[in-house]
């Protein structure tokens, strides 16, 4: 049943990456009868394979190929070779994501118009808006089975949530709930209800959390229109002398180079690998890389303004029990410049196991200040900040001097906080600590951002070709049959976890590509 396409079949759509963007696009196209070859750099792991042990799972799933870092962000110092914590596997980062599935707020599609010009920021309005996205969001919520949408019940609150909720309500926050989550609160779409096992970041062994790995990918394969090639590391995208892309070169597991011809190519390798691939595909016709006439490929890298807050109490919390991130305060997500910054942030419950708490509590920290916090791990509650960060032209992906195992230049990730990011983070730290203090925390503390999980903006969508890399369909301005299908197409980051929006954009893009193919325009 699973398709097998010839390397010389130039009628296929080649999708690079199989996560929230590529994996969904692959299935949606396959369902419409479009032939797809999806190239995935990682292997295939399913719920039985997932390991409920933080470091072992990290070794199994994380993208560990070389990357380099620069800029004044602390990640460049603490995790110089690991700027992001994302997944290299079929299903991509949907294996590891927490499941938070929230729509952008209406004004966030129009960041420049709403916030006005912000010095040092490269703000822009998206070429699409909330009304345009409404039906696609609805389809995405149905696909993912998002709780607290379409009449689905919310997840039950775990201990970590109960502490968070009690503190938030004491502070007067109103929008406090267990979140709109792509984790089943009851059986849905052949997936069971959440069993409160924890380890959401390590792959859900129950399959209660939506992941492309065991939904869209196998369903696409079942149509006979989708072939997924695992351990296929794409080296470059090729084009002809008319400037249209014609195929991609990739290394297989053994290091053999193959050329897969293509009618259309979609890039969906997350916000480091996607621009890296376009830059590594430079040619005499496109000396600055593919789709880069604007010089915007790799620029405007966003990672959300994050950070965590932990509170220690005089009694046990056992935050690790149950869903990792089912809890949210949305009151601060509004745009309210009186707080000293533009845009807003969400506060979401978060728990780490002891091994990762030790690694992330205060990277590089040591001594009793560090260990007395860990001593009370059992009495600890945790939350995470997700806020809109400012796109900056100088925060960017470039090609590094360092080469990967295939001899290809790796991505260098340069990031420095904008003053708006710093002001927002400090506000969020203060509010988060106040939440815990309100319910009797004996100690609370802010912890620095982890390696990025939300990587956005490096091939951004723009109305005008000179402002970005792709148009409102994710189609590159320069090359009609080259598409961007992941979070790198984000014009701005908004305050919300990005996966739902990536999925909604992928469903919409599939509809567009299939329609344009049928009309003979692609």
């Amino acid at each position, binding site marked *: 049943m699973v398709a097998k396409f010839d390397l010389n079949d130039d009628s296929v759509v080649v999708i690079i990456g199989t996560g929230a963007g590529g994996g969904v696009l692959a299935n949606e196209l396959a369902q419409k009868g479009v032939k797809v070859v999806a190239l995935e750099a990682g292997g295939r792991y399913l719920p039985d394979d997932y390991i*409920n*042990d*933080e*470091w072992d799972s990290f070794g199994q799933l994380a993208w560990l190929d070389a990357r380099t870092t620069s800029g004044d962000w602390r990640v460049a110092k603490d995790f110089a070779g690991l700027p992001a914590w994302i997944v290299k596997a079929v299903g991509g980062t949907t294996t590891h994501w927490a499941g938070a599935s929230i729509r952008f707020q209406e004004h966030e599609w129009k960041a420049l118009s709403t916030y006005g010009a912000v010095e040092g920021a490269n703000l822009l309005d998206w070429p699409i808006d909330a009304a345009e996205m409404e039906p696609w969001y609805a389809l995405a919520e149905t696909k993912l089975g998002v709780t607290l949408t379409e009449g689905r019940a919310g997840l*039950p*609150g*775990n*201990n970590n949530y*109960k*502490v968070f909720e*009690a503190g938030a309500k004491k502070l007067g926050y109103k929008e406090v709930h267990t979140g709109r989550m792509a984790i089943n609160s009851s059986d849905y779409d052949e997936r069971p209800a*959440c*069993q*409160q*096992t*924890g*380890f959401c970041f390590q792959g859900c*062994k*129950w399959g209660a959390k939506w992941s492309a790995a065991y939904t869209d990918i196998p369903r696409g394969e079942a149509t006979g229109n989708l072939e997924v090639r695992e351990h296929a590391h794409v080296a470059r995208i090729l084009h002809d002398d008319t400037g249209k892309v014609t195929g991609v070169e990739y290394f297989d597991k053994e290091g053999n180079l193959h050329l897969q011809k293509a009618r259309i190519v979609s890039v969906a390798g997350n916000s480091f690998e996607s621009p890296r691939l376009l830059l590594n595909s430079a040619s005499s016709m496109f000396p600055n890389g593919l789709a880069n006439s604007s010089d915007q490929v790799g620029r405007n890298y966003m990672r959300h303004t994050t950070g965590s807050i932990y509170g220690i109490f005089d*009694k*046990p*919390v*056992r935050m*690790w*029990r*149950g869903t990792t991130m089912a809890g949210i305060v949305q009151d601060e997500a509004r745009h309210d410049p009186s707080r000293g910054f533009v845009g807003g942030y969400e506060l979401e419950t978060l728990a780490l*196991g*002891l*091994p990762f*708490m*030790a*690694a992330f509590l205060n990277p*590089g920290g*040591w*001594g*009793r200040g*560090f*260990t007395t916090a*860990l*001593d009370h*791990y*059992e009495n600890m509650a945790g939350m995470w900040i997700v806020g809109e960060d400012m796109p900056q032209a100088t925060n960017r992906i470039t090609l590094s001097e360092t080469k990967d195992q295939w001899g290809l230049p790796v991505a260098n990730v340069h990031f420095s906080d904008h003053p708006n990011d710093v002001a927002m983070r400090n506000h969020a730290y203060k509010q988060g600590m106040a939440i815990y203090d309100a*319910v009797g925390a004996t100690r609370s503390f802010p912890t620095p951002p982890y390696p990025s999980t939300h990587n956005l903006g490096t091939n951004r969508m723009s109305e005008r070709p000179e402002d970005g890399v792709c148009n409102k369909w994710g189609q590159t301005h320069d090359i009609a049959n080259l598409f961007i299908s992941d979070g790198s197409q984000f014009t701005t980051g908004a305050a919300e976890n990005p996966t739902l929006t990536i999925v909604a954009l992928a469903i919409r893009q599939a509809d567009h590509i299939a329609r344009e193919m049928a009309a003979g325009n692609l």
Partner: protein
Amino acid sequence: MTRVERKGLTRRALLGRAVAAGALAVAGTGFIAAPDAAWAMEVSVITPEQMATLMQMARDIYPHDQVADRFYAVAVKGYDDAAAKDLVDAGIAALNAAAQAQGHADYLSIGWEEDRVKVLQAIEGEVFFQTVRAGLVTGLYNQKDVWPIFGYEGESFSQGGYIDRGFDDIDWL
């Protein structure tokens, strides 16, 4: 710290001497042992004194008074390796030099943690310190036997998760 040079002692005798010695003891050319003989470790590449120094360093970097020495021993035993010998030799020499610069005989002879921490602070920018510290993050905290000391329960899938086992059992709010 007394070093017992005599060969031919049995392991039991060595451990006995370790008890007599009081503190964490270097108990022979190839052994380091706990004062209560709860555990002992054989070293083959680096010296017992060096291993004792590494263990004290580990405890001073990540001090948890409820965590027994044997867990710290597991966390640093990998340094008894030919590949690590140069790093350990040079690193501990620099550590002891820093201790001497602060008026002590050597690092291990310093009685108060506070004073040892000052010595560690003098070398914390060095590769040796950073290697030992970074290694401890996984070497110490990723020991499954350490987790229960902190109350951490590890995986729960094999027991059906926490849905019927207290995911929401908090009773003090």
